[in-house]
């Protein structure tokens, strides 16, 4: 048995499974750093997976290899539009952000399958896409034994996800925009006093959140599943929330947590291949991310500090 190859495959699969989680948890990061709870990540991912698949389906015959890129980009646009009601409800109308998020998750699940059935003559899923993202290999580096396959051969979306981690870190911690975003999430009153438009910042953050989460969803339908159905996303939005909390609302932390949850998923197939399910039931591996999140939140595995104004609507009159 070639252990090098096994580990190489494991790392490779981990990156594949983590990509969607990285996008979505970064999306959650923008929204939550600005003080808006985003339980709707799941719904936003569903909209992204759906839009990505449908747009790619529409263009795959005429545009071929460019179609998934257009699908991916427009999935982001759809995500931003879909996020808008959450911003309107939670920022302008000061609705309970959790309830609003729950409503959007419902809406995404219903609407996406409803539209799929209309577009595909009653079928609950899109036809299998002929044109999806292929894997990219970094020239030269991918020839390195084991390491090349593990790290330097991946879907373009994976490379983009890791770039977005860096971009997000830079935006949040090194730019005036990021400073304002954090200020609005930590102490909106103080931010307002120094002339930051709290509402505008939160709207922007929620919509960025929609774009990134939708990209996470599109990643799934345009790489691993090659179609969209009701269970394409199946709970990954909630794991992304878990990754965000586990990663303490920090881009690198969220990435680390997403990779960790990705390992859990990758190990799952490995466990099945080696027949280890006799010793560790797969259900427990499925459970792992959720149990860990609870332990983290309970302070048993490190502490997690949420932005101070998270979940609190800002009322200009309350100054």
């Amino acid at each position, binding site marked *: 048995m070639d252990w090098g190859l096994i580990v190489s495959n494991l790392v490779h699969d981990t990156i594949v499974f983590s990509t969607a989680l990285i996008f979505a948890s970064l999306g959650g990061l923008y929204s939550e750093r600005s003080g808006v*709870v985003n*339980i709707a990540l799941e719904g936003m991912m569903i909209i992204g997976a759906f839009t990505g698949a449908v747009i790619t389906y529409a263009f795959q015959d005429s545009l071929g290899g460019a179609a998934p890129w257009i699908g991916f980009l427009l999935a982001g646009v759809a995500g931003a539009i879909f996020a808008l*009601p959450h911003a*309107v*409800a939670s920022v*302008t*109308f*000061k*609705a*309970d952000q*959790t*309830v*609003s998020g*729950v*409503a*959007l998750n*419902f*809406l995404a*699940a*219903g*609407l996406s*399958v*409803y*539209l799929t*059935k*209309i577009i595909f003559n*009653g079928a609950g899923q899109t036809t299998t896409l002929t044109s999806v993202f292929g894997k990219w290999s970094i020239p030269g580096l991918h020839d390195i034994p084991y390491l090349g396959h593990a790290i330097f051969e991946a879907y373009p979306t994976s490379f983009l996800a890791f770039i977005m981690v860096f971009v997000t870190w830079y935006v949040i911690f090194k730019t005036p925009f990021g400073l304002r975003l954090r200020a609005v999430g930590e102490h909106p009153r103080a931010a307002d006093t120094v002339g930051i438009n709290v509402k505008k910042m939160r709207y922007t953050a929620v919509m960025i959140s929609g774009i990134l989460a939708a990209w996470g969803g599109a990643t799934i339908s345009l790489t691993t599943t090659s179609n969209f159905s009701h*269970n394409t996303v*199946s*709970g990954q939005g*909630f794991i992304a*929330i*878990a990754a965000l*909390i586990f990663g303490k609302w920090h881009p690198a932390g969220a990435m680390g947590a997403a990779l960790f949850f990705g390992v859990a998923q990758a190990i799952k197939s490995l466990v099945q291949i080696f027949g280890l399910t006799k010793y560790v*039931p797969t*259900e*427990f591996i*499925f*459970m792992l991310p*959720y*149990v860990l*999140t*609870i332990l983290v*939140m*309970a*302070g048993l595995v490190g502490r997690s500090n*949420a932005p101070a104004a998270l979940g609190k609507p800002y009322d200009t009159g309350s100054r």
Partner: protein
Amino acid sequence: MNRVIAVFTKESFLVPLVAIILGLLTGAIAMLAGGFNPIKAYMALLEKVFGSAYNFGETIRQITPLIFTGLAVAFAFRTGLFNIGAEGQFIVGMIASTAVGVSLDLPAYIHAPLAVIAGAVAGGLWGSIAGYLKAARGVNEVITSIMLNWVALYLANWVMNAFFVPAGQQRSEMIHDSAVITIGWLSTMFDSARLHWGTLIAVLAAIFFYVILWKTKSGFELRAVGLNPHASEYAGMNVNRNVVKAMFIGGMFAGIGGACEILGVFHYQAIMTAQPGYGFDGIAVALIGGNTPLGVVLGAILFGILSFGAAGMKFGAGVPVELIRVVIASVIFFVAAHGIVKIFVKPILNKKKEGGN
């Protein structure tokens, strides 16, 4: 959270009513966009529900678990907690009652009640995990209960696979007849619609909800903690204990709901590929019902009719059943963002005032 509660005490009828109308309108717009006739579809929905004795009975069956999960969410809400975990509590109630129903051999008058109680206790304990973590470690119950929903789903599948599902099957063995709570004669009356004692238990649970919250000292404490934990603490109430208690009682409602589905409807538990969804519908039911027991029952009736009648829409007007999720989502959204609803309500209220002059 308190603001949500406050809204319901004021324009308690008007806001949910307008939210429902807006929800149905959103559904109608989605149908028009999809090339369907909304009037025909909604008529077909009603036709499905009220058209035959069997379907009417099945609608009652559909409403029952929604009353339970609605009460589970509403009870916690009254204590200032958002119980998004009714789903998990429901699932845990299902496993516990299946376990008791399959593995024990008892006379019916002990077996069936014991199986229901097992569901109640399991659901209650599952709910109190989130309550305990909130009380002891200050952890937000929303996130923990979402996570616990998934843990419950996989745990249920594992327990079933390990102990109750025969090799190669996808569902547990049947529960013993002595644990079944289906009402045979009533079922016959409704053309063998699966009617069961759970519906009666649901109504009793709603009454219990009312009595315990508004007629007992302990209910006063629960409500006081929900309205103002700091003042309650100052008045000498044990806030933490009340949080755990509220989540236990809430979880109990959901757990009984799960138990009744097994004992009254299916008589076995299947391996689940996804969450059954009653817990999430319960959130909508509780919100629409203003977190009052009567409101929850009415809300459950509405959502039960919508979700059961959806199949009729498909048959009668070709509308995919998923459309009804869009309607329910819109209703939840408009109740949450009641500010939007108020824009629609204001002209009506003003007109009334003018009329009064």
